[in-house]
């Protein structure tokens, strides 16, 4: 938790639903959504990798769409519905995907993984049934330094085929 005295920064009152829970807080107007979730709410599952929108480690769901938590201000989420990896896990929506990631070892250090899963869950929830190249293309906004991506593509492909009843 940040101990910063609220009086030191200009704040704004916001109310949002985070992982199904309504929260109201005074947030610094300059604070990124990812910082608010991590330090303000203690939701440390989403990670910070670059803070300039490239790496995708902070990917989270805002009103149903995956966004970069580092390119979104916390005040922009006023009135919105936010889902983080903690919420995705609790809902069970991505349980098959998470199991596939574990089984295929589609992660090593795990730092990119929550963002990867948010992005992959969006693909799975869509109508698309891409081939491997298509999966690679869709996942190209999420940087992983450990795996070389093949295992990630394998895991997503496996779940995609199961969900689309192709396997």
């Amino acid at each position, binding site marked *: *938790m*940040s*101990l*910063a*005295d609220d009086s*030191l*920064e200009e704040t704004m009152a916001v109310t949002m639903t985070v992982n199904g829970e309504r929260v109201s807080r005074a947030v*610094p107007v*300059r*604070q990124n959504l990812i910082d608010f979730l991590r*330090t303000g709410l*203690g*939701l*440390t*599952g*989403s*990670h*910070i*990798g*670059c*803070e*300039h929108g*490239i*790496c995708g480690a902070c990917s989270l769901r805002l009103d149903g769409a995956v966004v970069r938590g580092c390119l979104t201000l916390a005040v922009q989420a006023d009135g919105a519905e936010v889902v*983080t*990896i*903690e919420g*995705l*896990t609790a809902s069970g929506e991505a349980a098959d995907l*998470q199991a596939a*990631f*574990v*089984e*295929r*070892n589609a*992660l*090593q*250090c*795990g*730092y*990119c*993984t*929550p963002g990867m899963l948010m992005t992959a869950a969006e693909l799975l929830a869509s109508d698309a049934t891409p081939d491997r190249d298509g*999966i*690679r*293309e869709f*996942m*190209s*906004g*999420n*940087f*992983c*330094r450990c*795996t*070389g*991506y*093949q*295992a*990630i*593509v394998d895991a997503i492909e496996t779940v995609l085929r199961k969900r689309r009843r192709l396997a």
Partner: protein
Amino acid sequence: MTAEIKAKLTPLDRPNTYVGRTVSRQGARKAVAGAGQYTDDISLPRMLHAAFVRSPYAHARLTKLDVNAAKTAPGVALVMTGKELAERITAPWLGTLTCFPGMKAAPQYPMVIERACWQGEPVAIVVAQSRALAEDAAELVEIEWQELPAAADKETALDRTTPVIHPDLGDNLAFEKTIGSGDVDAAFKAADIVVEETFRFGRHTAVSLESRAILADYNKPAERLILYTSSQAPHMIQTIYARMLGIPDHNVRIVAPDVGGSFGMKIHSYGDEVATAAASMALGRPVKFIADRLESFVSDIHARENLIKARLAVSRAGDIEAIEIDVLSGAGAYSQYPRTSVFEANQVLTITGGPYRHKHYRAKATVVYMNKVPTSQYRAVGHPIGNSVGESLVDMAAAACGLDPLEIRRRNVMPDDGYPAVTAGGIKVKELSHQKCLAALERRMNYAALRAEQAILRKQGIYRGIGIAAFIKGTAPGPNGYYGIGGAPISLQDACTIRLDPGGGIICAVGVTEQGQGVNTVMGQIAATTLGVPLDQVRVISGDTDATPFGGGTYASRATAIGGEAVLKAAGELRAEILSIAGALLQAPAGSLDIVDGHIVDAGTDRRRISLKEIGRIGHFQLHELPNSVQPRLSVTHRFRLLDDLYILTNGVSGATVDVDTDTGFITLRKAWVVEDCGRIVNPLLADEQVRGGFVQGLGGALYEHCIYDDAAQLVNGTLADYLTPMAGEMPDIDVAHIHTPTSVSELGAKGVGESGTASAPAVVMNAVNDALRPLGARVTEQPMTPEVVLRALGKI
């Protein structure tokens, strides 16, 4: 199974073994739920946050530093300058090792005192209630610089007109070394064919997705410093911080929680991290510093910047006679402590041409300082460079002799039955398998079919390239090599303390560390197998100096090879003690008992007698049940190190296919293959994924990654938008296979695997690209092989 067969099996081969079996990682189950705990996820009461003022210039004298406005800014608790920090440390670092005779290095203070020597060098630390407030206050630090000319180019670093970065050293020369064997001059003079080329390797950096991170918590009354830090080597950091901050080692605890990637980059000492610890000591409060991505690019170690002139002599028939290389290696402003900045060049010298039988070799390295970010160990140190140079020369020789690249390698690699041997670079090698690897690669690639397809595609104007590259990789170094003999506070052995707790659980504490490779899982598999217990009965602890025996941590592909053997030995001793206690309880000779699936059984019949849980209960609580002569320890520490060997050498060969667009210079990676030999494999899936991930990291340096400096030694592409890394869309699928030649230095027989892909990928993709370009008479000799480099090679720009 007959008793006879069973008697021949070692515990590692038993039917219930976990060694050689893929099991999933507990750490992975945690990570997919977002339940990992990385350093930045830890918050402590009264915690403050640090931000740094850094030098905007590569070389500049500090003429004014006024921190008064910053000190009184909202939320600020402390501002400390480099000069003030210097008064709080015992001595600056000196990045030399005695194994590099003649090496020169300047003392390095954690932050600038009066002169900045690289852009990004820390100047002052600002500590405030939040990172944002600390950054606000950092902007209020009044600072004036006198900019000085910078040494920005390694090729002119030793010129008289280039400024000398550290006047006390006399010049910018860090180190020179020449090694050799045979009669190189005579061999080149007598050679049928000599091929030669100059190769350039760009600087790049690790870009671990989790940046460097440290949370320092100094408890003043207890005189106790706890550092939560994203580190590969907690015990080394403990030693270094204790020495530098003047605290006894045993009052410093290092905790490495989940580590979000490291790749060698997180095994060094960094001034901003020392400043964070010192700030916590000054304040008596926890202080957190998380490097942001922009400061990571100008403060994490860089690597790989080398210019190499190389030549190879070959007979008309295709026998490699001699290799000579001249290496100019571009270090940064200081030699990184404690591993130095000359190791990469040293490794290039020793491994170039390493797979082959030639007898004549000379290699010279010159390492120079520049006003750039310091360089040091990064995954596969030197090997991507040495393998690229050696394997390029071999392909050039093949073309000159009219041989297929696969054929020239078959002809020249060290034979599988020819060990022990010594390479021309002076490395003692044994138990390698170049020939088996080549044969396996040819099969897996379906090489002949690829060549046939390539010929058809050429007619259609498609420039498909097929690359082959053999490699050797030094893994798991021993104390008679560099760090131990060189005087560094780096442990070359590793350790395991294993114990049986009252509930029957096995606690296995290890000195090697986990960064997602699966170290903890692999150690657990070895412990469970050796003891004869289910894997979920074993908990592995790593990354905490209070909880683990002193060890070197994870580096140089050593965790399984060194740490795994320590686990095997420790678990073996604990098993013997458990059987002896069981024997006393059951009034049976220990030799007639065995442990299977967590139970003491009659050896041979596997009839269950008593559970390990019962042994734990009796051994800790109901001791009256034991004879007085039995005093249970139920805890064993064992250590393991190499004896005479410099490394456990590994080998392999990789293949790749690429398409080169000769109009745009774009390279499309189609597929890659790696066949490598890491000896006994504990967890096949994890080993494969180490190879794949490492290979892609090597592809990054070969194709995209480059820390680009301008003439003033300013890094011009220090963002993730400008510094390109491999992403999913461009990467190929990689076929991985293994030859299994266990090392004889350990019972486990495991060699290192974590860096092999990285060591090999740049060489094979460079050979593939040049295979595509060969009909056009063009050759790429520079990495990264950007479209611009390709088009320049083609003479199109």
